[in-house]
């Protein structure tokens, strides 16, 4: 009986948390139009979150494209359709792997730092200090990070896709000897606007999701060293799982 009661309590708690997070996100996003405009801080966050993740995105993008080309070639060559290697690499990258892998990398690189930073700001009472200086911490700290995530991730995904496509071309055409003209022609032929739209739409939602979850977890972390560590771990875990779940949902709309 006790176990069932515990389960019920857990479910109720999770629902309460979900509601809390939603209210938090709405209250924060509403501050977008509030004055003073946090322009400078948006730019600073874009630098920290977006430019900071650039290197890891380029590296993962390149190797994803390369391994896709390698795997795809060895599979397609068995049925004599290696001419389809271009679309194989491009569609896998643009529709699925670009948004998802970039988002997962982004969670690890930027999301974790957001949660930890906000958590530590609370531990060291910097939030209260901001408020004392008549600065709204929700607008200055939370909103700037959420918006920076929502803008940076689509840009990072586009860069990821581009790097991946070039890497795939290098492996497919230069190393494995697929005809270059056929590779590019088939790719342009098979990739449609809807594929690119699907990829970019996904990444915007992922960016918002990562921003909201990570700031929320930081904000609600217990104000101890251990609390911050736990919140960071939870934020990364939750973001990763939610990205994959949301990916399935959005993909089902775009097929």
């Amino acid at each position, binding site marked *: 009986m006790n176990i069932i009661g515990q389960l019920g309590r857990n479910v109720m708690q999770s629902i309460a948390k979900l509601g809390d997070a939603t209210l938090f996100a709405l209250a924060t996003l509403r501050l977008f139009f509030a004055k003073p405009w946090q322009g400078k801080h948006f730019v600073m966050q874009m630098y920290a979150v977006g430019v900071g993740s650039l290197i890891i995105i380029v590296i993962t993008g390149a190797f994803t494209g390369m391994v896709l080309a390698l795997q795809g070639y060895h599979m397609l060559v068995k049925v004599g359709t290696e001419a389809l290697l271009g679309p194989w690499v491009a569609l896998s990258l643009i529709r699925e792997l670009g948004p998802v892998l970039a988002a997962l990398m982004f969670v690890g690189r930027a999301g974790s730092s957001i949660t930890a930073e906000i958590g530590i700001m609370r531990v060291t009472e910097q939030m209260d200090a901001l408020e004392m200086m008549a600065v709204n911490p929700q607008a200055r700290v939370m909103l700037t990070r959420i918006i920076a995530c929502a803008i940076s991730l689509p*840009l990072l995904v*586009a860069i990821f896709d581009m790097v991946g496509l070039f890497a795939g071309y290098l492996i497919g055409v230069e190393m494995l000897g697929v005809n270059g003209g056929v590779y590019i022609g088939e790719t342009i032929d098979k990739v449609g606007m809807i594929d690119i739209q699907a990829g970019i739409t996904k990444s915007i939602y992922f960016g918002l999701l990562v921003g909201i979850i990570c700031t929320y977890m930081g904000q609600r972390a217990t104000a101890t060293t251990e609390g911050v560590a736990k919140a960071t771990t939870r934020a990364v875990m939750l973001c990763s799982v939610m990205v994959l779940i949301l990916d399935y949902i959005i993909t089902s709309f775009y097929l």
Partner: protein
Amino acid sequence: MSGYKKIEMVVGIFVLIGVMSIAWLAIELGGVGGLGSNGYKLVAVFDDAGGVRKGSDVMLAGVPIGQVVSVTLKDNEEAEMVFNIKEGVLIASDATVSIRTKGLIGEKFVRVNQGSEEDYLAEGDEFEDTESAINIEDLISKYIFSGETK
């Protein structure tokens, strides 16, 4: 302040690269502003549209010259297709169209066989003669049944 200016620059470059990547993907791969944006429409009626869909290629001499805009049912028995043909491509009025397959298991496309008349098809004209898709299953069943009757 100079430190912040530098950050501003870097972020600007980052955004520029990102936006350019999206634009490149959309224009090069997505085909925005490519085929189908301008041109003229032609109509053809087939007994069997056999796998041709909206967006399938229309080819002349193996070169893509347009796309299928719509495939609809006409008089409850035939398939009516509307093609969008690229500006500047002239198709003789006695040209015929047939449905073909790219490679052995590739996708279906519409092949235009150029005619010899001097006058050309214009916006809204219909092809005189069409050849429907070859249905492999029909061929196989024909072969099997002809074997039985012998």
